[in-house]
């Protein structure tokens, strides 16, 4: 296996690392910065896939990833944090140590599941898909373990980055799908942004525990 595989593996591994960093962060500004890094690495990984697969349309995906996921959305999140005036720590449900162990277990699980299943595929897309699945699972874990709505948004966006990584690794992903996914993420982001302000307006906080108690679910 040559340099092509090594670099693809390194970028995918860095994605997983950035996901774990997201899981580890407990400050909003740092969380958004790591999310920006996450999007940036994604753009690099997709561009590298475009290069080694000689698929020019993937360069378009990389450009979309760079523009939307590394620049626009983190920038918008920064503005939301500024407008809401929240620089506090993010409340996590469990301790950081426990969550990190869960994250590592998810990485191990996705490797254990994905590597045997994709035995027929070529190595580059195999490792890409296996690591992309762990990014997706860690994104879900972030959403589960965060009380703060912005933390959950970060989890959702990193999950979407993972799906993008998998799509870039699997050959034959049509560009139109890519475009519509990117567009729907933007729409989802706008909806989430509006919701954040509504939640904040009504409850004076974006801690979702307030929603639970409002619905009478709090123990």
């Amino acid at each position, binding site marked *: *296996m040559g340099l092509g595989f*090594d*670099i693809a593996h390194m970028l995918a*591994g860095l994605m997983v690392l950035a996901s774990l960093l997201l899981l*580890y962060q407990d400050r909003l500004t740092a969380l958004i910065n790591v999310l920006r890094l996450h999007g940036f690495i994604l753009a690099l990984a997709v561009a590298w896939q475009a290069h080694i697969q000689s698929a020019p349309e993937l360069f378009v995906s990389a450009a979309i990833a760079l523009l939307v996921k590394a620049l626009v959305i983190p920038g918008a999140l920064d503005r939301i944090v500024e407008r809401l005036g929240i620089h506090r720590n993010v409340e996590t449900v469990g301790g950081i*140590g426990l969550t990190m162990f869960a994250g590592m277990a998810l990485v191990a699980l996705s490797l254990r599941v994905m590597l045997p299943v994709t035995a027929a595929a070529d*190595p580059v897309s195999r490792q890409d898909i296996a690591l992309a699945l762990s990014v997706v699972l860690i994104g879900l874990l972030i959403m589960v373990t965060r009380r703060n709505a912005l933390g959950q948004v970060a989890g959702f966006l990193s999950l979407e980055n993972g799906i993008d990584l998998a799509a870039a690794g699997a050959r034959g992903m049509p560009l139109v799908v890519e475009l519509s996914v990117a567009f729907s993420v933007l729409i989802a982001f706008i909806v989430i942004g509006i919701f954040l302000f509504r939640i904040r307006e009504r409850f004076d906080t974006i801690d979702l525990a307030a929603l639970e108690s409002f619905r009478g679910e709090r123990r």
Partner: protein
Amino acid sequence: MMGAVAIEALQMAFVLLAAPGLVGIVRAVEARFLRREGPPLIQPYRQLARLLGKEVVLAHNASWLFRTAPYLILALTWVAASVVPTFSTHIVFARLGDLIVITALLGAARFVLALAGLDIGTSFGGIGASREVMFASLAEPAMLMIVVTLAITAGSTQLSSIAAFMLSPVLGLRISLALALVALVIVALAENGRIPVDNPATHLELTMVHEAMVLEYSGRHLAMIELAAALKLLLMISLIVCIFFPFGLGGTGAAGFLLGLASYAAKLGIAAVLLGIFEVSLAKMRVFRVPELLGAGLMLGLLATLLLYVSRSL
């Protein structure tokens, strides 16, 4: 064979003599960055000489353990430093230069130090010992994960083989090794009680770990302990340098030897400057946040192993 013995003797003398100088460089860099004049580079040597000349003040209830511990700690650390191929792989103990051996030797030194901290029965010693052991319980698994990563990649836990592998062109680009490097730096910072973990320059009771354990030592005992601490810093830097930056190592003949010596000295100097810059740009962590940092080191080691599993199973 004789040459190997001579090189080994030279290395053992060199690490012992260079260790206080390394501490001096780190302190000088920090002083410069804080716009202070700072002590001269030879200050650590002067301090050791001064301590050696002073009488030892012992607590009434100090046992034999308290008196022998400084020598034991220095001996264990020195042995560990003597098996690392620092400027030549042709040393007598190269076969012993195994990552697991070094981890075990450092663990033994830490055990003795913690016992000495507990021996006097002061509360500071107890606090320091318990914190040290708490950190060690996370730093050692992280160290072992790093060892596993290196062993799988290079096919050996022996430092000279790992260095030879790192110099060979089959290496390629490995993310696992990058993760292992970051994890090893975190472990090294924790092992030496450097800034995000512990502040080696203060006696502030809220922060101290290592200083708390050795608070009761004086005279030549304190000199031994300070020398051992400096030696440990040099050892961890040598370990990182030997594993990840083995350039100039492994040459044969007089030219290769001199090249190894020069590159090793240069690498030590660069590492000391980097450590100084790193320390002045960071604040110390709260003690209860340190396990998170070490946990991150452990995670990085684990992730490195997992990624290695991916790239090797394909």
